[in-house]
């Protein structure tokens, strides 16, 4: 029985291709005191970004700028602790802002090859 358990364990490791790896590319932006932190986030294509609202007030994560809002994403984070996730597939610069507090600006810069 002991040898069987050992064989199963080794087989399991082999099938998984080694020890567990980190989750697929993921980055985070904290919304705190009416700021996006970090203000500029640099990532690779295919990375998922999670915004978390740390303020007790509604904010939005809206693509573009106040005068040139884009359709790429526009999400309201109403409650403190609420989150929004978006995966950036293509290289480029993605400015965004809060439509309720338009001085709040941030940018995601997607550069390089895939993760």
């Amino acid at each position, binding site marked *: 029985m002991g040898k069987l358990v050992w064989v199963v364990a080794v087989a399991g490791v082999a099938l998984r291709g080694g020890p567990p790896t980190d989750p697929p590319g993921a980055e985070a932006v904290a919304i*705190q*005191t*009416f*700021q996006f*932190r970090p*203000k500029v986030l640099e990532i690779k294509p295919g990375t998922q970004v999670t915004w978390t609202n*740390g*303020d*007790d*007030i509604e904010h939005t994560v809206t693509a573009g700028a106040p005068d040139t809002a884009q359709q790429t994403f526009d999400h309201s984070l109403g409650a403190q602790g609420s989150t929004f996730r978006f995966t950036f597939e293509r290289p480029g610069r993605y400015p965004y802002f809060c439509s309720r*507090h338009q*001085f*709040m600006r941030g940018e995601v810069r997607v550069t390089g090859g895939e993760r």
Partner: protein
Amino acid sequence: MHRKMTILGVAALLLVGARAGQAQMQAKMSGSTIVSVSDLRVSLNNLLAEHVFLAGAATGAALGGRDGEFKAAAGALDANSVALSQAIGSVYRSDAEQAFLALWRKHIGFAVDYTTGVATKDKAKQDKAVSDLLGYANDFGAFLSSANPNLPKDAVAGLVKTHIVTLKGVIDAQAAGDLPGAYSKAREAVGHMRMIADPLAGAIGKQFPKKYGQ
């Protein structure tokens, strides 16, 4: 006109004196010297009282059609806003300073909207401005609460709403040509700012006891 100029002249002298003292306090707050909570309290009280005074000067000039005076008062009001944001920045990071300044300027814009609505007798514009100001109170409460957990959002919002109401009283009295009433309301509005400055200073001292000698 001469009587008004005399009143303004005295007020300007008081303002210069207050700002001179404030400049010294600002230098102390922005440097490496540790300031006490009492220093904080004095500084914030001066800045917020100055805010009310300058806002009243600007709205009075606007309603009286005195463009040159309005521009001067509005410029001084913005300088006060910058000084306030620098006081915030001396406690928190510079990005919080910038966020505060943008948020603070926003409420001044709403006050200008209200004044314009009063001047043009546009009730809808007045009502929208008041609604915006009340919404702003929640924003400001959330901002300070986020920066300092010792400041409950709703409590701060309530204090800001009172500030809005008292300043609105000044503007309404100015629009009605009731100068004694306007100055009486201004004293009330200035006095109320202590209700914001004192707890703000206390909360900052509680948040950073080593920095502020607690």
